[in-house]
């Protein structure tokens, strides 16, 4: 079955980096804080599995430790977005057209209207660049994404007959939202959750690429790419390897999300069989 293949492939890819990140807490091929200028810019396989960077640091080690940063930042940021955004979206839909809907959605528009990177830059200008500020910056901007999606998904359901039936049966808006709306938009949220998770990883990489994420000596994939930029013509592997790490992690998460969606939504399972 198709969902199974996606799920397995995605879980393997994601698991690879999660396990790598976890292992890095107890063991890494070498020490990423020790510089070895004599052994710099080694090609992959030349003593080091993935080669060394311009300071002679082992790239596999950097990737493993960098995975920690990426995964932690993205995970917490999506959590913030879902925990705050979904209840807001459900409330707005239940009170569609009312003042509460208006306040929530305008509040969302307001957060949305701030280009996240610009605000991240502002936050770091005021409070300093760090992984925590990156989480806050990415997390805040996940809230309106989930709120809007939840609201629009819920709105399309509120006019349906089975919701009418539930209302006639005397159920309140909160109960209908929890019992009928939420399960029906769960697959939408899962798909969006994986997109936001991958976007979180990409955003973290982007922020650390411009120097606003985790600070040295903490390795991060984004800064590895920034360091590689001027060396790309003489040592392309410096740019290729962190890039592939990001792509494979994001790809794995997305495949896993797709697989989970198919697993959770019986309608889709029938369709693909």
């Amino acid at each position, binding site marked *: 079955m198709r969902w199974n293949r996606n799920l397995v492939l995605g879980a393997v890819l994601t698991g690879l980096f999660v396990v790598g990140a976890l292992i890095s807490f107890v063991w890494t091929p070498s020490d990423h804080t020790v510089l070895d200028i004599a052994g710099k810019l080694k090609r992959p396989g030349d003593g080091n599995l993935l080669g060394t960077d311009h300071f002679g640091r082992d790239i596999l080690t950097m990737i493993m430790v960098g995975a920690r940063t990426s995964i932690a930042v993205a995970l917490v940021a999506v959590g913030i977005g879902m925990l705050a955004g979904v209840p807001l979206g459900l409330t707005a839909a239940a009170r*569609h*057209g009312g003042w509460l809907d*208006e306040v929530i959605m*305008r509040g969302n*528009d*307001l957060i*949305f*209207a*701030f*280009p*996240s*990177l*610009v*605000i991240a*830059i*502002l936050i770091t*200008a*005021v409070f300093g660049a760090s992984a925590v500020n990156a989480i806050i910056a990415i997390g805040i901007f996940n809230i309106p*994404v989930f709120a*809007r999606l939840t609201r*629009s998904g819920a709105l399309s359901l*509120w*006019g349906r007959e089975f919701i009418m039936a539930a209302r006639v049966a005397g159920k309140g808006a909160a109960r209908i939202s929890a019992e009928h709306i939420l399960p029906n938009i769960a697959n939408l949220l899962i*798909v969006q959750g994986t*997109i936001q998770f*991958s976007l979180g990883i*990409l955003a973290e*990489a*982007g922020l650390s*690429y*411009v120097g606003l994420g985790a600070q040295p000596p903490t390795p991060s994939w984004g800064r590895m*790419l920034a360091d*590689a*930029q001027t060396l*790309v*013509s003489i040592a*392309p592997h410096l*740019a290729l390897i*962190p*890039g592939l790490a*990001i*792509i*494979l992690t*994001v*790809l794995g998460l*997305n*495949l896993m999300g797709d697989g989970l969606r198919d697993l959770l939504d019986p*309608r889709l399972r029938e369709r*693909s069989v």
Partner: protein
Amino acid sequence: MFRYALRRLSSLIISLAVASLVIFLVVEVAPGDPASYMLGINAQPDTVAALRAELGLDVPRYQRYFDWVSGLMRLDFGTSYTYRTPVAEMISDRMRVSLPLAVYALTLSTLIAFPAGIYAASRRGKAGDTAVIGLSQLGVAVPNFWFAMMMVLVFAINLRWFSAGGFPGWEKGFWGGMKALTLPAISLALPQAAILARVMRSSLLDMLDEDFMRTARAKGLSRRHALWKHGVRNALIPVLTILGLQFSFLLAGGIIIEQVFFLPGLGRLVFQSISQRDLIVVESVVMLLVFAVICVNFLVDLAYAAVDPRLRTRT
């Protein structure tokens, strides 16, 4: 429709007011006094005071806020602390790079995504669908600045078709400018197109399962006709949301891409201004970006109402 637009317009104005207040306050709490920063650590206190007066920093906060906002309305963004030139001039210079870049990228993204999404949905489960899904999976996963680096490596360093960065200016000719923006626009557009194609496909697939689609087929419409007349039109609702969102992604993504290609756009202006403590420039650029996104969201909401009359009325 008119009343709906009027109601949305009033909330647009409130949003802008709140946004301007938030930006002003955030920039206000930023540490460091622009005047002492400009004069260095050995400056005499009276020199600093004189410069503060000249920059208009000695008046109370609330008055500075109102001066700033009323200035914005007259398109007078004040004078840069660092360069002593009107901020409006600096911004309009940079806009001539950033705005065409965002529009170029959005156009490319839509041109790729719409046909791809519709094609995939109409061939659900077949090879064409699988190919589009696979490519979009990959496109979503690629960081645009990494993609940009790879394109520089291939098309600028190896093939020498494009320059690796920089911008010649529109004075040197339209096509020269467009050529300089092509690699950046492709880098920005491809990941966005992948997302958009996915949304278009899944939204259209949801529509294909709806009763009204079956009705359309039952009353004798061809598959293609039903897809275009009923499916695509209804599927556009979620797609429009994403398209609205993408505008802010493109503006934000543009900032990073401008770094990769050394383009003299708004993004680089913000970075420079922050490092030089030129807060009046930061404030104005951020406000401008926010203004642009709020207006786009407003237009998306209006477009919603135009596509789907149900959304105009309260339930």
